[in-house]
């Protein structure tokens, strides 16, 4: 097939470079965007998401003990641990208190405790996706991207769990 120049690989890698260039501005982007709406951005909307991500990590680690399901559960644990870490870092950067990550209370809602591990993990991920989705309109700029990415990752995990 004869394909003209100005093609997917060249144009997209160029775009990606431009996007990366813009991403380099992000540390101060939230300040600018937040100011136009309601003063400095608040870390508050991120706090429950960080707690939720850490709970999911614990639930997934406990579920990983189920032999047939360990690989998927391990992936959930890794991804949700990254979410918790990034959200806490962002909360701290905005001057908030991310709470103590050492909380070891039972991670799952009581009504879910009778479900098998996989079903429990799926409902936890659905809830996490929804929570993050609902948080997107409450934040802007870098935080909106972060929260949207968390939501998209939870939706993606549901494809493999």
């Amino acid at each position, binding site marked *: 097939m004869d394909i003209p120049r100005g*093609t997917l690989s060249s144009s997209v890698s160029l775009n990606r470079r431009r996007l990366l260039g813009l991403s380099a501005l992000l540390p101060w982007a939230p300040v600018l965007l937040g100011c136009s709406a309601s003063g400095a951005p608040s870390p508050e909307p991120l706090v429950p998401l960080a707690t939720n991500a850490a709970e999911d990590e614990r639930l997934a680690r406990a579920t990983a003990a189920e032999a047939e399901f360990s690989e998927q559960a391990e992936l959930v644990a890794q991804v949700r641990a990254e979410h918790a870490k990034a959200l806490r870092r962002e909360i701290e950067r905005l001057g908030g208190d991310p709470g103590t990550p050492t909380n070891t209370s039972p991670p799952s809602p009581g009504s879910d405790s009778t479900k098998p591990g996989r079903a429990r993990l799926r409902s936890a991920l659905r809830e996490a996706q929804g929570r993050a989705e609902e948080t997107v309109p409450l934040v802007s700029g870098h935080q909106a991207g972060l929260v*949207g990415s968390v939501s998209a990752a939870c939706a993606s995990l549901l494809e493999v769990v």
Partner: protein
Amino acid sequence: MSSTELSEDGSGALERALGAEHAAVWVYGLARAFVPESETGSTVEAGASSHREHRDRARTLLRAAGATPPAPRAAYRTPSPVRDRNSALHALLAVERDCSVGWMAVLERSRSTELSELALRGLTGAARRATKWRVELGERPSVPPFPGRE
């Protein structure tokens, strides 16, 4: 649909996301011939339809904001020539990643609920399909922690 205010960088990001959607529509059309219908064909069909919808919505929003939406190219170059199932899956994965990156940039620059919703839907759909293609290709991990920021 109400007219949407787009900041200058929001408009630029939306134009680039639309460019990624144009490429995705083209690549899904190409891949259809190489991915057997019985297997993941329905995912290909659903993906193609979703990309067309996002392309159309991006165009509409740009026009509503007074911008001229970029036109699709006649053809796009894939990461490797698409000549079998495997190379088709790689091309599908590549366009989904580009769409994720494109919609993430829109989400970060959006100042309207309508645009944020579209960007989140574009990002989420692309991330989910990328995961399906990674699973088909046997790539690990099948889910990156931060789709759109890979």
